[in-house]
């Protein structure tokens, strides 16, 4: 094995650009080794606070709809809005400059500062200025830049890129800041607490505020009708930056423009709550500069008249606007909810799950849009768990953007005869056959399982040869540390037909509910499928097993969108006759349920989707719970928990996509009603997320993500063991890997009560 550098010796800057795969691997090692504890603590605090703060907004969903509408309209009318904004800023007495590139923006700002003979500029946090590398340009021109946001101050001292779009230094623990400051500054102060560190930085920066000739801020939003800025912060440094010096320059991307100051009313409710989870941050400034109030005159100086420049940058945004996928990213208000609700991000942060400027789920689109496509390679860390979906205040489907980036990166790969032949044999769409072997392997799990199931004994024997595992690891990147479950002797379909005859058709003897033979259960665990059907019948649901068809989940997660589209279309054609008749479709595997309910919106043509979405797709425990509610069934009598050989103490982990589909709560309700003592997890994702955790390059990350879940289980078992229950196939494998125990599907647990 090649010699690997100590994680502590890898500098964040060195691995900021991840167009090369090795940088991504090194970045994951560095962040797991050095930064992970601080990132977890900080992002998970934001995450908890966001859930609490948004739940207190009575009209949260309407606000999100409104925010989405405002952003869609703004981006649609951007050229007109920019003209209107320019007129507003000039009418206020300010200057307006629209920069096509980052370099143009930097040059304009530098020229303004040099014209005013500015030696020292104080700066509020602006990620856009990180994008343009403004500090570098100014310092090269002899202007001293004082970053005054404490996080940016840390980054400036450490020379690192931001790791988070709202809290750029959240990868630093207090201890690491102390060590950094002691290394970089000579001081007698102890610097051993947050208070001492803050005091040290405050006193240093207070001198700069007083002495500064100019202030540079960003902007969270800009109103075209009045030239107003909305500036969100908690430290007070942005208020200082915009209030004290006579010269104020605001730099922002053109996408920050909304039509009217009245629109701020929507975003002021959503942005702080979605970001740090505060109802409001300490300060939200609403300004249309230049301010009328006089500027600060430092002792011994006279106050100078105010001057304001608004510098907006395009730097690729115009192209993003023309791009049907990247256009979505222009709606982003940079709240960071998609970062904080992402289990992978919570574990490694933006120095691994991020590029030179932007990070997290939405960051890939920004890096690709303002830089090069391959800079978005880190968006591979989006496992498609969908937890960010309900969190986005402007309803951006972030996983879909990342699947598209993955597709584009796949398409940049050179074609090869081997990939092409493998793809043709396993069912990749012709366009997708340039994708790496690993991606085509995981994308076409159904075809691979189907051929293995012709001779399951042979496949099982072969799979367990040590040589086979190392071959699989080197050819398709399937990590050898992962258990591969043996293929069953018979598929779910075969077991079911053996007992019940042919699959029901929509026309004849249609049952009230159709169970989809999803590929994961069909080829992986037919016993779970049979258990679910038995449980449904036990509460009186007439359920029959439907077709065994791939749904496209495994393909879409590899960015093989055309392959996924083919599978989605075949699935839709097979299910539409049932849907049209109002027959409910029950789906055991939550990732497939999410596919049918959510992802197909992107994959089916609009007419088919309009028909398809009328379907009643539900998870088996949802079906049990709704029948029990309707018919007032006593579940404790039907499934008496105390009769289960597993005992009544349960730990139930809800699968990520199941939660996003709002199809998880019923499982907990059913188990509790049956008399089980149910403990549950609060993690966003177990870390396996389909094929993600099986991949050699992500195994360590996946297990590190799982550690939060394993810790919650250990805590819930302090007073005695619990049987592990989960609905997702990949959660089962992750729990097995972390806890070394088998896991039951909730239906199997209920079945155990039937005697």
């Amino acid at each position, binding site marked *: 094995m090649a010699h690997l550098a100590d994680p502590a010796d890898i500098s964040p800057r060195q691995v900021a650009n991840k167009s090369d795969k090795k940088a991504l691997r090194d970045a994951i090692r560095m962040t797991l080794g050095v930064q992970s504890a601080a990132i977890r603590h*900080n992002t998970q605090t934001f995450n908890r606070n966001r859930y609490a703060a948004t739940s207190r907004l009575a009209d949260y969903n309407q606000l999100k709809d409104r925010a989405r509408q405002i952003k869609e309209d703004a981006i649609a009318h951007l050229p007109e809005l920019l003209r209107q904004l320019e007129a507003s800023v000039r009418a206020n007495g300010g200057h307006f400059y629209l920069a096509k590139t980052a370099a143009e923006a930097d040059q304009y700002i530098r020229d303004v500062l040099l014209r005013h003979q500015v030696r020292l500029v104080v700066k509020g946090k602006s990620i856009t200025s990180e994008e343009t590398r403004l500090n570098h340009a100014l310092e090269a021109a002899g202007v001293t830049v004082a970053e*005054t*946001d*404490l*996080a940016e*101050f*840390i980054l400036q001292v450490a020379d690192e890129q931001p790791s988070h779009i709202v*809290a750029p*230094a959240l990868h630093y*623990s*207090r*201890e690491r*800041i102390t060590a950094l400051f002691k290394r970089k500054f000579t001081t007698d102060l102890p610097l051993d*607490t*947050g*208070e001492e*560190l*803050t005091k040290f*930085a*405050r006193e240093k*920066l*207070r001198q700069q*505020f*007083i002495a500064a000739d100019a202030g540079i801020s960003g902007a969270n939003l800009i109103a075209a009708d*009045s030239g107003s800025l909305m500036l969100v912060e*908690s*430290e*007070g*440094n942005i*208020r*200082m930056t915009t*209030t*004290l010096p006579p010269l104020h320059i605001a730099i922002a991307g053109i996408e920050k423009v909304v039509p009217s*100051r*009245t629109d*701020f*009313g*929507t975003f*002021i*409710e959503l942005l702080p709550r979605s970001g740090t989870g*505060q*109802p*409001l*941050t*300490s*300060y*939200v*400034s*609403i*300004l*249309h500069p230049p*301010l*009328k*109030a*006089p500027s*600060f*005159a*430092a*002792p*011994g100086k006279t106050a100078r008249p105010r001057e304001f420049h608004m510098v907006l940058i395009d730097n690729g945004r115009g192209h993003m606007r023309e791009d049907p996928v990247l256009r979505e990213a222009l709606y982003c208000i940079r709240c960071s909810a998609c970062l904080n609700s992402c289990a992978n991000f919570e574990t490694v942060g933006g120095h691994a799950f991020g590029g030179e400027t932007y990070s997290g789920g939405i960051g890939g689109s920004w890096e690709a849009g303002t830089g090069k496509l391959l800079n978005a390679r880190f968006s591979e860390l989006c496992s498609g768990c969908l937890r960010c979906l309900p969190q986005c205040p402007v309803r951006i489907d972030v996983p879909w953007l990342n699947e598209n980036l993955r597709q584009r990166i796949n398409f940049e790969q050179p074609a090869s005869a081997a990939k092409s032949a493998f793809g043709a044999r396993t069912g990749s769409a012709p366009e997708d056959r340039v994708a790496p072997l690993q991606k085509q392997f995981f994308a076409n799990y159904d075809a691979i399982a189907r051929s293995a199931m012709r001779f399951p004994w042979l496949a099982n024997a072969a799979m367990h040869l040590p040589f086979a595992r190392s071959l699989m690891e080197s050819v398709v990147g399937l990590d050898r540390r992962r258990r591969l479950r043996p293929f069953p002797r018979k598929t779910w379909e075969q077991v079911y037909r053996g007992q019940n005859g042919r699959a029901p058709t929509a026309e004849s003897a249609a049952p009230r509910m159709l169970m989809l033979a999803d590929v994961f259960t069909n080829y992986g665990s037919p016993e779970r499928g049979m258990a679910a059907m038995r449980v449904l019948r036990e509460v009186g649901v007439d359920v029959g097993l439907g077709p065994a068809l791939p749904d496209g989940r495994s393909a879409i997660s590899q960015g093989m969108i055309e392959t996924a589209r083919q599978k989605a279309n075949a699935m839709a054609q097979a299910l539409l006759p049932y849907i049209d008749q109002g027959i409910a479709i029950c789906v055991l595997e939550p990732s497939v349920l999410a596919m049918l309910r959510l992802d197909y919106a992107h994959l089916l043509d609009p007419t088919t989707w309009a028909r398809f979405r009328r379907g009643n797709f539900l998870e088996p425990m949802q079906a049990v719970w709704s029948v029990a509610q309707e018919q007032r069934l006593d579940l404790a009598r039907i499934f008496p928990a105390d009769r289960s050989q597993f005992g009544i103490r349960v730990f139930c982990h809800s699968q990520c996509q199941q939660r996003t589909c709002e199809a998880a709560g019923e499982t907990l309700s059913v188990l509790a009603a049956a008399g089980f003592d149910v403990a549950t997890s609060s993690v966003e994702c177990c870390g396996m997320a389909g094929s993600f955790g099986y991949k050699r390059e992500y195994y360590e990350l996946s297990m590190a993500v799982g550690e939060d879940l394993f810790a919650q289980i250990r805590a819930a078992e302090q007073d005695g063991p619990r049987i592990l229950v989960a609905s997702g196939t990949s959660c089962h494998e992750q729990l097995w890997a972390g806890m070394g125990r088998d896991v039951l599907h909730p239906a199997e647990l209920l079945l155990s009560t039937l005697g």
Partner: protein
Amino acid sequence: MQPAIAQMSLIEEFTAAATQAVASVQLADRSPRALCNAILQAVGDAPRILYAPPHELPAELFSEFAADPRVRANPTPEEMVGSAAGVTEAFAAVASTGSVCIDVSFERTGMVSLLAPLQVAVVAAETIVPQPRDLFRADVLGGRGLERDFAFVTGPSATADMGPLVRGVHGPHRLHIIVLR
């Protein structure tokens, strides 16, 4: 609800939210004496107090306070950056978040509300609105929120950038709000 009762419950909601945001809130009668007492009690033995005269509330209300020898309505730059407390009016407040809205376009109001470790804001009870979004409506408070340069101030300045949550960063370390009945 009767308007008066609705305003009462807004004051209660405001007080609870501001307290949650680690501000202190005090109700005071609308008289020069009562206001002066309330402010002086809040600033304690501060040797120097910055003061930005009001534009909404009658200046007369602040007359007794302004006569205190420690008060500086026209501070030197040294006094501006070296005083213990800063007193301004707020032209509005927000019940759901416990915020006060400080106009920063008049003379030194922005700096006085920002530079001293203790910030005191005086707000009239009838200018408390239910939610932040109300400041962006033309039919609330005469549309002032759509015209002015102002800051929503919610609690003292704070940061978590140095590890634990620390109150008192570049802005005030404490915020005291006086609501005029």
